[in-house]
Structures are given as C-alpha cells and as structure tokens.
C-alpha cells in the first residue's frame, strides 16, 4: 500500500455546510468492528489532556493502548497548570451564545489564520466535553441552585467559560487521568512512566513504532504499533524562560519533523502579558498571573526614563497609563499580543521598572479605593497570595510588577482535518499540532482543544486509517527500521557524552533563549531574524564542540535528557526564525516591524499570507522547503482587528 498523503498538504476538509461537515465526515469514515479493534496497538506519546483523553477513549473502544510519559506519573503532565477555564457554547446563562459565536470568536481571535472547518468542529464538540467531564466527577464551580456556573474571559462578550476555582486544568486532567487508570485496570492501557520518545520508526513510509529512552536505566526500548499519537504539547521552552513546565519539550515533535512530518507555522508563539518578571540569572521559569487581573488592575510606567522612585511616590501626573492612552476603547483589556508588545516598547524606551528595568506596574490602588479591600480579596485573593509568595511584595500595598512571557505555541506539526500529519499513521493532538488557534489563541481555548482532539475527534478519525490498514502486515521490533533508528539514537547520545566540553547545557539554553526572546519574540524584523539564524547556527556548532554533560547514560541523568532537548531546540529555533522571516506580514502573535501602521499597529496581508506555512525537512545541511496550505474563508469575512 502506498502512502497517500506523504508530503502533500491535503486538508481533507469535508463537503457540505459548515454545520454539517463533521457529521457528514463521520458518516463517511470507515469503521473497525469490535473483534478487529483488539488486533490494533496504538502508541500514545504524552499524557496531558490530549494524550490521556485519547488513550482512555481508544481503550474504551477496544484498542490496545500503550501510553508514554516523561514524568513519573501521567497525572503530572503540564495541562495540570492551566488556571482559568474551558470554553463551551452551552448558553446556560441565556446570554445569546451559540456554536457559531464560539466559532467566530475563536477564528477572529486567531487573526484569521486557522481553518474554518476545524474551528467550527471544535465549537461543536465543546458542549460534549463539559457533559463528559461532569459525568467523570470533575468538580466544576456551581451556583446555589446546583447548576454549573460560568464566567467571562478575554475576546468574548458572553459568559461561556466553565471553571474549577483557579485549577481548571488540574481538575480536567485528573478526570482524563482517572478515565485512563480505569482502562489500566481493565488491562487495555499500559502506562510507561519516565520514558522519553527519541525517534519515530517508519516502515514503508508509515509510522509503525517509536524508540524510547528509559529515563531511569538509560536503556533504549522499542515499541511497535499500528499508529502513533503525538500528544506532547508545545515548544515554548525553546525560549529558555517560559510558563511551560521544566520538562515540557519539543523533542518528540522535532524527531517526527526530521522523519518527514511537516511543521506548520513554527513562528506563531503566544506571549502572555501578565507574568511575574525575571528576577535574576538564576531564574528557572516564569509564573503566569491570570488575565482576569486586568479587569481591575491599571497598567503604567513612569513618564520619565530611569525614574527609580518607589511607585507610591510617583505622583499621578508623572505616570503613563500607556494602554489606556493608546487604546482608549479597550484600555487595560487590550488583547494579549497588543498588551505584550506595548509593555516591551515602554521598557525599550528605558521606562521599565524594578531592579532589571524589565517590568511594568499593574496597580490595584484605584480598584481598592473604589470597591474596598474585601471585594478585591474575594476576587483575586489566591492570585495576590501567589504573587506575594514568589516576590515577597504585598500587592495590596504596592503595585504588582509584571512582564510578558512565552506561554503557548500555536504552531506545531501540520495535521489534516483527521489530525493526521504528513506521515500516514502519525497523528498529532493538542498543543503539539498547529491546528485551531491560528495566529493567536484565546483564553480558555487550549483545554477545549486538547480534550476535543482526544475525546471526540481521534476516536472517529483513527478508525478510518486503521480500517484501511486492517490487512497490513504487523511490524515487529526486530525490523531493520528499528535497528537503524535505535543506532542513530544511541549515536546521538554517545556523541553528546563524548563532547566533554566546558560549558553547561544551561549556558547554551540561556544563550539560545536570549536570542529567541530578543529577536523572535514579541517584535521581529528582517535584519535581526537573518542575524539570529546565523547566530543559532554558530551556537549549535559550539554546543557540539563544547558542551559538558555530567554522569553516565545508564542511570537517571536529567542533564543528559536536558541536553538532548536543547540540541533539538537549537534546530527548532532556527526554523522558527526562518518562518518568521518568511512571513512578511503581522498577524496575531507574529509582529513584523516592517508591517505596521504609522501608529504601530499590526498590518495583516491577506492577499499573500492567508495560508499556513508548512516546512519540510530536507537534511541537516540543507534548507527546509516551504509548502503552503491556502486558507479559504467561505463562511466568515476576515477583517482587520482594531482596539483603538
């Protein structure tokens, strides 16, 4: 059998009206009968929301599932850290929400760089997700009448966000995890903790297995299967500092890219405006302060450069409430990308605050005077406490210091409507794919997408592929393709261990992060991007000559794991810069300085860039080749966003 979609970007969007596409598609997908489902083994890599929900749902259907996580338990995957909530078009509050509205807000919020059909399907299944989670015992917030409570979030005029205090991600993940453990108990899922995927094994151009490193023993393990599901999350840690967990990484995705899966929109990164700023070189990660704070916090910096008086001694007339000044109609609630960029500009001007000058104030004094301390405490008490824990400052008395930080990557491996990558049998779910958020993700949409992919999309679409391959010969781990992949992996590990250089992995990661943050971050231009591509190449050469990896391969060795990941970030970072250089427009989180209005607003170019850029790997010493999937808007009309 030949690989039908290898290397060719066929989105497979079904026919019919927007409302009917998904139903029509399900009707046309082939099924696998229950007796045959038992014959298939599905390898699920990553156990966050997307991976856990997919593993559980597929096992319930009767497939055999092997699930792999780099952590010691699937319950710790980084989906757990999501705070705010999950969107669904239930319209419980009767405020006029519909599936169409959720679809429209999401595609507009993404600055018209995602597929209509995908986003509409996401909005359609959003309601099933809430039903599913409640049935699992997820303790969403409720009203006194016993019904579910909703709140509003950025980018929407309706209240459609379901939440579980500030720990929605945790509760949804534990729900999916419990569904998965039930299938472990039923013998349909095997969990492989502390295992990291280091390569994809292809046989006859199809994904048929994975090569894994056992993080405790260092042994290389082989697993064969009928399909591979990558649910490994985003690649924000390429910037060194981000709100991602320390172990979140891009290696599985990158290794699949190098085996032929195309990478969609690598430069699309979301930089969240309200994080706790960096305090020193030792900083290991960044912590988000919820977007909801901007409802009452006023953002400002001193008007004068280098004004280092304490904030409370700076009189009102010497403060610049720059968001209110530049965006009078949205003010402090301007969207994430716009707010982040504005903070960068005032800091670049030398008006940043705090020890490093890389922070702005978010001030609650007016809100406290207006509403009283108790009202503010009731709304934001836990966030204020977290801020105080980390910074040692009391935000009831002094303004918070905040700064933007890398938070989410909209880019990822390209997938068609079935979530299949360009390698048949390799499916990509959740943040790891490029799919539904376009150039900018709205709040409370990431949880929705991860669970939609895992609970409701993949159980349908995977059966079509498996039905087609019902009679395909099983591949054993003795196959020469496994030998080759294992050898290449071992060679890479040994090469690293033998460098025996002087600089630590952290030194290299910090250097890469600085390049990425300064030039492939909130604001990008041609000259810098070209320079960064050169510098990353140099840094990579230096890495392979001068990195110092401690310890051995045959024991738990986190700095070796880390080094393998940093090696991949350096290659990915270059691709991100290349994509940013190629995309000659400003859209969503991607802002090219050459493409802005006179007063600094983004200028999108729908004529030339209403598309997904997809990069194909051609070899370490060759430039990747760009392919394009055109985005056609049949049902909505792209408009220019304005927040003035």
């Amino acid at each position, binding site marked *: 059998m030949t690989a039908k979609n290898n290397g060719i970007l066929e989105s497979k969007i079904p026919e019919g009206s927007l409302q009917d596409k998904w139903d029509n598609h399900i009707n046309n997908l082939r099924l696998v009968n229950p007796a045959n489902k038992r014959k298939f083994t599905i390898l699920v890599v990553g156990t966050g929301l997307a991976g856990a929900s997919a593993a559980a749902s597929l096992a319930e259907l009767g497939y055999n599932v092997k699930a792999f996580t780099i*952590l010691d338990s699937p319950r710790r995957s980084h989906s757990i850290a999501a705070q705010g909530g999950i969107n669904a078009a239930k319209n419980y509050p009767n405020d006029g929400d519909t599936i169409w509205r959720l679809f429209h807000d999401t595609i507009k919020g993404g600055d018209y760089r995602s597929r209509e059909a995908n986003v509409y399907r996401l909005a359609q299944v959003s309601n099933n997700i809430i039903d599913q989670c409640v049935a699992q015992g997820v*303790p969403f917030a409720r009203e006194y009448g016993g019904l579910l409570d909703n709140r509003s979030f950025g980018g929407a005029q309706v209240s459609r966000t379901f939440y579980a205090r500030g720990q929605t991600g945790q509760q949804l993940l534990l729900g999916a995890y419990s569904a998965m453990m039930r299938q472990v108990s039923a013998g349909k899922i095997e969990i492989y903790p502390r295992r990291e995927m280091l390569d994809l094994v292809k046989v006859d151009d199809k994904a048929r297995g994975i090569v894994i490193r056992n993080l405790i023993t260092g042994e290389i393990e082989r697993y064969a299967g009928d399909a591979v599901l990558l649910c490994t999350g985003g690649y924000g840690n390429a910037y060194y500092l981000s709100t991602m967990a320390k172990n979140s990484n891009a290696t599985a995705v990158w290794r699949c890219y190098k085996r032929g899966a195309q990478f969609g929109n690598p430069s699309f990164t979301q930089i969240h405006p309200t994080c706790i700023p960096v305090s020193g070189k*030792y900083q290991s990660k960044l912590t988000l302060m919820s977007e909801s704070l901007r409802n009452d916090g006023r953002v400002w910096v001193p008007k004068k450069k280098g004004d280092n008086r304490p904030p409370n001694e700076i009189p009102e007339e010497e403060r610049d409430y720059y968001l209110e000044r530049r965006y009078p109609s949205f003010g402090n609630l301007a969207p994430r990308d716009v707010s982040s960029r504005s903070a960068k500009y005032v800091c670049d001007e030398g008006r940043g605050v705090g020890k490093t000058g890389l922070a702005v104030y978010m001030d609650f004094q007016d809100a406290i005077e207006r509403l009283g301390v108790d009202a503010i405490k009731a709304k934001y008490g836990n966030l204020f406490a977290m801020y105080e824990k980390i910074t040692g400052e009391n935000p009831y008395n002094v303004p918070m210091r905040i700064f933007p930080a890398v938070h989410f990557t909209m880019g990822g491996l390209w997938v068609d409507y079935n979530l299949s990558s360009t390698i048949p049998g390799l499916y990509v779910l959740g943040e790891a794919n490029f799919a539904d958020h376009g150039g900018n993700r709205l709040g409370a949409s990431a949880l929705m997408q991860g669970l939609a992919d895992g609970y409701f999309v993949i159980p349908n679409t995977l059966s079509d592929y498996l039905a087609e391959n019902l009679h395909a010969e099983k591949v054993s781990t003795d196959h020469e393709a496994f030998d080759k992949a294992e050898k290449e992996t071992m060679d890479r590990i040994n090469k690293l261990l033998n460098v025996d250089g002087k600089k630590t992995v952290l030194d290299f990661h910090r250097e890469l992060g600085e390049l990425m943050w300064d030039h492939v971050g909130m604001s990008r231009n041609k000259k810098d991007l070209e320079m960064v591509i050169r510098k990353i190449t140099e840094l990579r050469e230096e890495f392979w000559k001068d990195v110092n990896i401690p310890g051995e391969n045959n024991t738990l060795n986190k700095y070796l794991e880390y080094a393998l990941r940093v090696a991949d970030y350096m290659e990915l970072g270059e691709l991100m810069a290349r994509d940013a250089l190629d995309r000659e427009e400003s859209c969503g989180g991607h802002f090219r300085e050459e493409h802005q209005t006179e007063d600094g607003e983004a200028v999108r170019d729908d004529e030339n860039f209403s598309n997904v850029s997809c990069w194909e790997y051609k070899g370490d010493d060759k430039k990747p080749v760009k392919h394009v999937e055109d985005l056609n808007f049949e049902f909505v009309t792209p408009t220019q966003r304005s927040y003035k």
Partner: protein
Amino acid sequence: MTIHLKIWRQKDRNTPGKLVDYTMDDVNPDMSFLEMLDWLNERLMNEGKEPIEFDHDCREGICGSCNLVLNGMAHGPHEATAVCQLHMRKYKDGDTIVVEPWRAKAFPMIKDLVVDRSAFDRIMTAGGYISINTGAPADANALPINKYDADLAFDYAACIGCGACVAACPNSSASLFTGAKISQLAHLPQGNPERKRRVVNMVDKMAEEGFGDCSNFAECEAVCPAEISITAIAEMRREYFNALSEIE
C-alpha cells in the same frame, strides 16, 4: 546570603546513601529553593562533579513532582506550599538546611532525592474513577449538585498527589491521599453506584502497596501543600465500614 546544605546523595537503591555538605555563598533571597539547587548543580558540573538529581516540573505548586524534606519537614517550613514555591527569603544568612527525599517503604529510592511514587497510580487504578465511557452522557446540568457538596468535593479533589502526607506520617500511611479521592467521589452523585466497591478496593490496595495505617497523628494535614483536611480520612473510614457491612 550564605546557606549550608546537607543533601542526601545515593547512587541507586542498592548502594547506601549519605548526607553530603555543600556551602552556597551566593544565594539570592529571591531564588526559589529549587533554583538554589539548580545553581548548586551548575557549580558542581563546572567542577566536574555529578549534579544532584531531584524531581520537579511545573514549579508552580500544582503538578506534585517536587518532593523534598527540609530539616525534617516535608516541603519545608512554609505552610500550604510545595517546595517549588518556597523562596530563600524564608531563611536567614548562615542557616543550615538538611535536604532529604521522601522516605517510605512504598516509595523505593531511585537516585539522590528521587523516589518511585508509582504506588499512588496503582491505588488510583484500584478504583479512583467513575465508570463512564466517552460518548454522550446526559447534559451537564441534568444533574444538579448542591453547592456545599460540590465545594467539598473540590476541596478533596485539590490533592496534587505529591506524597508529602506519606513522608510526614510516622506510619508512612497514604490515608490522606486515598481518603481525598474517596471523599471527593463520595460527595458527588456520580460516584454513588461504585461507592462501596471503590473504597474497599482502594483501601486494600493501599495496604498491599506497603503503606501503613492511620493512627490520627495528623502530620499529613500539617504538611499538605493543597490543604487537604484529615476529615478525608474520617470519611474514608466511615465509607469503608459501611461498605464492608453490606458487601459481607
């Protein structure tokens, strides 16, 4: 500031471990405790020595990966805080801190400060779920749940599965962890159909994994970063007795 550390180093399960002294002269009060360990590890690597292994991931106090006992206190001196959210400004210049892993028979040693907590996953596998397949359950609002029970269920559901309760317990009991899940599901109508089987299976599994029983020391509650109350254990026992009386 200067901090003296005595850190547990152990090559693997079969090699005896010991406390090793390290002095850090350049600790910044704004560092988190784990960032200080990162800093120390960088120094060790630059000196050609092996860094200290410890588990960590989100560093926001929610994933439950980090697991250090500081001066005998699981997660250190700051209450309701996982050790990743502990900052060095809590300490004074010249302080000495003894750093150890969770110690319990059911959490076997892996290396240095890293232990194997997969017993928790096996307790969950024994019944920490509601048997519902993915599909089309009833509308989420078809089953109203009174706010009191929903909030209480949430309090128990907040457990981050770190294992501090076990580390702090003189009996190495996992009762707070197990009780939290049982109590969460006991307060929700969705949990009702499997209520009896669940508590018996999970409690029996806990014993089988080598965790001790509870003798009401309440050390677990004192160290819990998610502030789970020991009423969870009382509820678990009540559930267990009720279940046994009917099952037998």
